[in-house]
């Protein structure tokens, strides 16, 4: 047999990073997912801006916050679906599952790549929302970013589980939204409420926002743990 140079499986985190790097390298080349996600997010924000910005009046903070989180969820769902389509095309997922990489490392890699793509979309989303809705982000941008980051991790953690489960299902795009949205309702509520409390120009509620931030963190721990544990039986298809 040929010399493979001493095959010895790499560590868990390194395997996860390689899988994430693979997804990002593919996206860097095609820019397909990122372009679609960003386009959708921008369209959602624009549509709501036409509906809520009337004669230059600024919509309430709760409305702006809701718009941002709806745009995040819609664009994130499309991104999830397409990212996992790439695993299905040509049965690449089978090759991935036949490597010694732990299933949990594969899940973590997919999660990291999804979070990275969503984060890039959120930069555009947040900036556009700030301009269109004249949202007061200046002093609270760090806290809003933390809320968005935690919400993104939770959304992607749950989304990667369902996307993997639906990898071979017909009508998976519609099914993904149907199954995922009820699960992520607490994330959206926490994110929207926390963001609303932070960007309220009159009386920002930092204590309230801190609670929702902690709540999101707890949800992240729950969803990521469930994903690491459940990915193996989900992808085995047995």
């Amino acid at each position, binding site marked *: 047999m040929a010399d493979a140079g001493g*095959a010895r499986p*790499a560590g868990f985190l390194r395997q996860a990073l390689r899988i994430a790097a693979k997804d990002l390298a593919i996206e860097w080349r095609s820019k397909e997912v990122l372009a679609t996600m960003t386009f959708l997010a921008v369209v959602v924000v624009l549509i709501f801006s036409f509906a809520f910005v009337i004669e230059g009046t600024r919509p309430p903070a709760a409305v702006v916050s809701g718009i941002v989180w709806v745009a995040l969820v819609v664009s994130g769902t499309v991104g999830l679906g397409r990212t996992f389509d*790439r695993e299905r095309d*040509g*049965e*690449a997922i089978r090759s991935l*599952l036949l*490597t010694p990489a732990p299933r949990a490392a594969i899940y973590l890699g997919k999660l990291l790549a999804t979070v990275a793509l969503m984060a890039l979309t959120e930069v555009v989303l947040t900036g556009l929302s700030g301009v269109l809705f004249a949202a007061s982000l200046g002093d609270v941008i760090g806290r809003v970013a933390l809320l968005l980051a935690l919400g993104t991790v939770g959304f992607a953690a749950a989304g990667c589980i369902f996307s993997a489960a639906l990898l071979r299902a017909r009508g998976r795009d519609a099914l993904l939204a149907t199954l995922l949205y009820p699960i992520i309702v607490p994330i959206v509520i926490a994110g929207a409420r926390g963001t609303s409390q932070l960007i309220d120009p009159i009386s920002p509620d930092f204590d309230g926002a801190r609670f929702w931030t902690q709540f999101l963190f707890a949800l992240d721990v729950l969803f990521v743990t469930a994903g690491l544990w459940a990915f193996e039986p989900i992808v*085995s298809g*047995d």
Partner: protein
Amino acid sequence: MTGQGAAALRLSKVGKIYGGRRALADVSTTFEPGRIAAVLGPNGAGKSTLLAILSTLIAPSTGDVRWGDALLGRGSSLRARIGYVGHEPGIYGDLTAAENLTLFASLHGVSDPAGRAAALLSRVGLGDVARDAAARTFSRGMLQRLALARALAHDPALLLFDEPASALDPAGADWLSRELAAERDGGRVVVLVTHDLSAAAVADQLVILRRGRVVFDETRPGGFGAEAVRSSYEAKTREQTRDKPRESPRG
């Protein structure tokens, strides 16, 4: 580890049931290193299920598979010694051939993934393709060559082929037969699942499945040859049309 590089793969009363439907029943056979075993059978015979069990992607409902003296089960660490070539290439179309091989070699822990990728591309005749060409631009034959290179990235001791010659032109099929022979001569356990009787001509061992059961299992070192494969297959599957409907829809 127990020297799987030279160990035989032994299946003992392997069965698989999907949702109350039997896909495999009491399959017992041995796949020896240095031989090509062809698993034949009509649609629904259980060939793909058998291959999925051998590749550790699913677990048998009954019986066991042993590689040397180690149990080969779902998620077994022994899967690091298995290479798989399916009718789909199992690669990422947006990556180049070298990037695909480097990725899979690195996930297998190969110490010099890029070097290994270059060597394998040269070995399968893809050494001169454009370095920046995405794999999705390849012809079917090129993709199958790349799939074989991917399966060999970690120098596996067990090579599994699932309909590898489907959609290949005659020249591609000939190339694949030579590659199968080369892998056998390299001392690997080679298991080939196929509908294509001519593709099975190179086999030293012929296993015919029908409705999930082994109805023929014979070894002829040096190869069966096309005529012997055809006559054995026809003799063992001729009665199928008179039989009651098969019990499983799985292939």
